[in-house]
């Protein structure tokens, strides 16, 4: 239904909202190239000093490296657990299944601060605070629901009779998974790992509690930086993070497209 009169004010309104969503992020990018430390647009001059302040600073780089390590480990652990859980859930018709699914999704809805302090308090008993293990475990808890949801969606598009057919043709259940199921849901698994990586990389609330001097993450450094002063270094870091997000979205779209084609849906 394309009613010309109704479309136009609605379209304008929607674009205004989209602008509201995007302009703040877009505004940061020129600011990061500003030669002065004043936040002003257009910038008085252009320079790369803030990027240099980020890239050549060992504290910033250490934090970035920590974040990458933690995010990679979290992603692997989260996807491994998530794949097994999603696959198990899809193959059972259990009465308690709905309850189990609610449990698995609950970390998404419970306030992050509550999860953070609960974990902090238990980890302090276990002496896990300030360790890499601790923060990886903590991040896995909050990314696990995402991986289960994404991989469950991929499995739903996958016809279970394909596995049955593979088995009838002589494949052991393990080989059926490896040769038939996995290649088809591989795109979903990749998307899930990107989700988990990015979510862990961006996470700050739990990190403020469980992180320590050795495991300072990038968001933690930004958090400290923002509360005390708003230097444009943060603008430079932010611009890089925005670009990474866009790149990840792009990659995700490519894999989404591929997985839909494999499942036989029209692209």
């Amino acid at each position, binding site marked *: 239904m394309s009613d010309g009169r109704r479309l136009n004010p609605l379209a304008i309104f929607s674009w205004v909202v989209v602008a509201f969503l995007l302009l703040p992020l877009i505004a940061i990018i020129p600011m990061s190239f500003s030669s002065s430390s004043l936040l002003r647009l257009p910038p008085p001059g252009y320079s790369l000093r803030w990027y240099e302040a980020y890239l050549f600073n060992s504290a910033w780089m250490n934090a970035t490296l920590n974040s990458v390590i933690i995010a990679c480990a979290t992603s692997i652990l989260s996807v491994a657990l998530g794949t097994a859980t999603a696959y198990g859930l899809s193959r059972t018709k259990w009465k308690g299944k709905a309850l189990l699914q609610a449990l698995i999704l609950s970390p998404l809805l419970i306030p992050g601060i509550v999860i953070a302090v609960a974990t902090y308090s238990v980890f302090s008993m276990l002496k896990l605070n300030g360790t890499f293990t601790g923060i990886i475990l903590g991040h896995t808890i909050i990314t696990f629901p995402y991986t289960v949801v994404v991989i469950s969606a991929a499995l739903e598009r996958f*016809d279970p*009779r*394909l596995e*049955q*057919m*593979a*088995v*009838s*043709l*002589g*494949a*052991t*259940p393990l*080989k059926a998974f490896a*040769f*038939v199921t996995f*290649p*088809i849901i591989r795109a979903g698994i990749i998307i899930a790992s990107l989700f988990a990586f990015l979510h862990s990389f961006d996470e700050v609330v739990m990190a403020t509690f469980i992180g320590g001097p050795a495991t300072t993450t990038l968001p933690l450094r930004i958090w400290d930086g923002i509360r005390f002063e708003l230097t444009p270094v943060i603008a430079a870091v932010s611009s890089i993070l925005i670009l990474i997000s866009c790149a990840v979205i792009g990659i995700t779209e490519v894999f989404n497209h591929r997985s839909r*084609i*494999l*499942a*036989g849906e029209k692209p």
Partner: protein
Amino acid sequence: MNPAVEFNNVSKSFGNFVAVRDFSLKVENGQFVTLLGSSGSGKSTSLMMLAGFMAPSGGHISIDGRDVTELAPHKRNIGLVYQNYALFPHMTVAANVGFPLKMRHVAKAEIARRVRSALEKVHLDVFADRFPAQLSGGQQQRVALARAMVFEPAILLMDEPLGALDKNLREEMQVEIKRIQRDVGITTIYVTHDQEEAMSMSDNVVVMSKGQIEQAAPPAQLYERPRNAFIAQFIGSANVIPGFVKSNEGAKSFVSETGTTIPLQMHGAVEEGARKAAIVRPERIRFGTGNDSLAVPAVVESVLYGGTMIRYATRAGEQRIDVVAVNDGGAPRQPGETVHLIWEPKDFLLVDATAN
């Protein structure tokens, strides 16, 4: 010589619901046997138990004399073809067909040779490097067939494989499948709800209803000698007339519950007084003359001129009897006309009246 497949008193229940009961069947080597029934008859469930994807609640299943009831599906050496083809979308046609050989650790060169030969049998060798999504429904079904046979399984199971195809293609594929099956000589068990398909393709048809075997016989026998009213009506069409056998001074007749008397010419003993159902197929009834003592007089109620056939609904007393006549160009009978229905004695069957 062991039968290729044997079901021994197999049953399957889901909680209180009995899906299959007292299922006993022997299939000899090289036979094409069809399980025929409507949905819920238990035919697919029986096939799934043979394939190993469902465990029977009772009874045994053997293949080539070997008890496979407890055997995992991937060890049963069975070829499966489904209605939705179940081709692996991420593999080429050749990779699909070669998959079972790869699972059996056959050498690569040997796989390539056998895949080519299998694809040639189904006339699809040109499409070896295409992906399933690029093929038509009929072509995909042929790939599925090639894949199910390339590893020379003991038996081939097909679960309503032609259901997704349109009528012309379906008939074409029926001929194809039968030809390939004859060529290769593989024991095949086919499941369908389409009785014409079952009759035209099978050496033997097993008619199933509500989880039980109603009758298992070659198509001709099933058609000419249906065991009960259900089968008579499921395969082809039939007049089913409940009633009793009466004897009057040595002459036997069948009296319908509607009060119509039909003279009987049965050889052999027929119990008097027992409630039976008389079965006579509409196309086996002819119009005779009033001089025939065995003819049943009736009045034509309606005439449906169908081109090839003319269908008459007649009424003998209170009993409705349908007649189908080939259109030989003569003038059809008119409603209200009195006719005399006659048939061959062998075409008039007495079976036990079933509860329905």
